[in-house]
């Protein structure tokens, strides 16, 4: 009995996931032929609630790509893989407090801020480096022009409010 109910609720969840995935996919399906440019897949996956690293993203793309990569991802391949990802709750988003601690790691002196240069250094030389475009975009919103620094606690709060 309990098994049946579980199965039902999973089915319902799967059905709902399918609709969500389809919707997100269609936003980028410009030719209405159930394909999207591979370069947009990351956006689709992230907008569905996942937060993969670049490395994880590349692995995912490899799973959904054709054997001979065409530059396009087909929905038929994308759907089952993405459904699994959602069912397994993979690549969960990062909670605010963890994010704060990450910034604090980069600010061992506990000043409460990072200078613009420091931010640039970390974001473009460490981890999975930003492109110039990404860096510029982050700076435009994050840096306080008067102090030329990012007060990361405020920054996080602002971004999180914005999300909701």
């Amino acid at each position, binding site marked *: 009995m309990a098994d049946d109910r579980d199965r039902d609720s999973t089915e319902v969840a799967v059905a709902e996931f399918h*609709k969500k995935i389809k*919707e997100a996919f269609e936003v980028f399906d410009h030719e209405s*032929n159930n394909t999207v440019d591979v370069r947009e897949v990351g956006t689709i996956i992230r907008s569905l609630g996942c*937060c993969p690293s670049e490395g994880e993203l590349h692995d995912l793309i490899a799973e959904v790509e054709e054997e001979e990569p065409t530059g396009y991802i087909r929905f038929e391949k994308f759907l089952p893989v993405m459904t699994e990802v959602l069912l397994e709750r993979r690549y969960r988003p990062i909670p605010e407090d963890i994010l704060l601690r990450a910034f604090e790691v980069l600010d061992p002196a506990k000043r409460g801020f990072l200078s613009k240069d420091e931010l640039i250094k970390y974001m473009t030389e460490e981890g*999975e*480096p930003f492109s110039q475009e990404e860096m510029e975009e982050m700076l435009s919103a994050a840096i306080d022009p008067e102090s030329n620094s990012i007060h990361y606690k405020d920054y996080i709060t602002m971004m999180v409010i914005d999300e909701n």
Partner: protein
Amino acid sequence: MGSGTSTQHHFAFQNAEKAFRAAALIQRWYRRYVARLEMRRRCTWSIFQSIEYAGQQDQVKLHNFFSYLVDHFTPSSHNERDFLNRIFTEERSPQASETQNCGDYDSIEVPDSYTGPRLSFPLLPDHATALVEAFRRKQRLHARYVLNLLHEARKHLVQLPNINQVSTCYSEEITVCGDLHGQLDDLIFIFYKNGLPSPERAYVFNGDFVDRGKDSVEILMVLFAFMLVYPKEFHLNRGNHEDHIVNLRYGFTKEVMHKYKIHGKKILKLLQDVFCWLPLATLVDEKVLILHGGVSDRTDLELLAKLDRHKIVSTMRYKTRKENKKQAEEKGNANQTGSAGRPSPWFLPQSRSLPSSPLRPSTHKAHRAGRSSSVPCGVPLDPKELSRRVRRSVDLELERCRQQAGFPAIKEKEEPSSSESEVDSDAEEQPQPTPEEWRQVVDILWSDPMAQEGCRANTVRGGGCYFGPNVTERLLQKYHLQFLIRSHECKPEGYEFCHSRKVLTIFSASNYYEVGSNRGAYVKLGPELTPHIMQFQANKATHTLTMRQRISRVEESALRALREKLFAHSSDILVEFKKHDKDETGLIALSDWAAAVESVLHLGLPWRMLRPQLVSSLTDNKLAYKSWLENLAKEKLSQQNIQSSLLETLYRNRSNLETIFRIIDSDHSGSISLDEFRHTWKLFSSHMNIDITDDCICDLARSIDFNKDGHIDINEFLEAFRLVEQSCSGGDVSDCPQVTNSSNRDCSSPGAH
């Protein structure tokens, strides 16, 4: 010893690793944030586009409404009959002599107090430049000069061929600009960035100069001025908005009447004529074809080059210019019977004779084989047939026309009767646009490219078609062209290539939907005719905003429009919700919410993606739908005494209502009588199956008649429900059209707008 350094190293290594991981975490988080912003941006764009195109479908709905009237409404009194006549019989198109009159500007005096630009003809380049400068300083051109300029413009346009041939050997470069839609800032920016027109700097403006934006008049003045000053280098193509019927709906008519209260009507009449004389396309070096909308699988450039473009007054209704003469005669004859002369429903097809077969069988075969009727209006009706009916009552007349508006199959049967009267038709002197000619023009002014192969009717716009890459390819090959430049569609980057770069869409109205919504662009054709795109965004504010702020702002605007749409369909949506809530819990699952909303609105939007922005609170992952709908209503209910369902209906039909009002207001005074208002409502509510009593409408009408003179100012009416768009003088209600007596009121002092 060793352990000290190795601990240090270990520590340092650990720190480095921690920093690496911390950075990676921040980057991961940030990339997700950006992705979500991007998704929001795309969804916002979909909202704007789907609402815009749904609005365009309104024209189709309007046509259906009138057809419905023909079917079901029997005027029960003389008043109603006359009223119907008013709706169905548009004021006749200007006669040649009348148009001459409109150009009669000499009698208009310009007062000494006028500080705006003064024009003398022939225009010199300095005048044109000075005009741009004057408009930049928010001055307004006096009606006399407007009429004078339009008159001169028409004289010039009349000499031009349908397809302008331009060569790059004379000017070093050609710049092509797309839709401007009354956004003067963009035009000024283009001239600033790219340089003013000159013998070395040719320009092509690809239609849609007017409507929507607030400076359509000024844009036209500048464009026509440069056209007169550099006739060989400055070229204009007609767009689907260079059309007086479209202008009724999309704001240009309103703008003219607002800026030129005394002479506005004259100006509009002259413009109607000028628009018909605009060339249909421009061909550069016989290799690059520039036209406003697109092409279809039937596009025939030879036919387009040969036809008399002046005959096509409006692509919205298939009516010709020379009818009025006959109409006037027959009106005289018919007066004795008391009928309203020869009512010719403006929205239904009618035409004079066609020397050759009016209803070519091949046309219909192609029609049925290829696609459904590409435009709401159909095929011509023989005039002799019509004249036989002159003495019939309005009802029968309309009944007849309704049949004409039917599908091709029906028309074929009528061929024999029409062809009988062909013999008489030869007596007609003036050639008229054939259905084929008309369709050709509609196709090039209204079509959009699509990714899929083939060619199908453009049901979204209600005119023209969607054409695929194979259609483009065939056309380019047939006429030995390199590529096509068109406009007509707003693009986020201001331009877009498609069909393997054989079609370029260029759109020059930046921030079209909202500040920050899109860039504008123009294209320069270099020596090998290679296109170089230049983008811009004519609003300083956007540059200081972060991507996040820009997207938020545009998104807000889109969501507002969407919420309004949701409100406008509250009743239907509630019905759908209840279907998903058989147990009457008052709650609905999100999945069902999305399905319900889409089934009512048909906007094809990603509702699940939009859900967080539209639905704020959930209980147990379910939505309490009644209160959600009530909240939507609360935003709109500015007047407590108005039924929410009435308000809903108004919102839902505002675009059509406004258009109908403006049609009724044939003298463009800006007001209609209470009676007319009531009649309109009665008709509308019967069509819409709305359960609103006549009394309620009467009360409403009376409450809006603020000065109790038995007339309703259209803008007052719309404003009463906050329906009027903020395009009228920056939203200043007091500036909305009032009847004035002073002749000096036709131009405002500098600064006032």
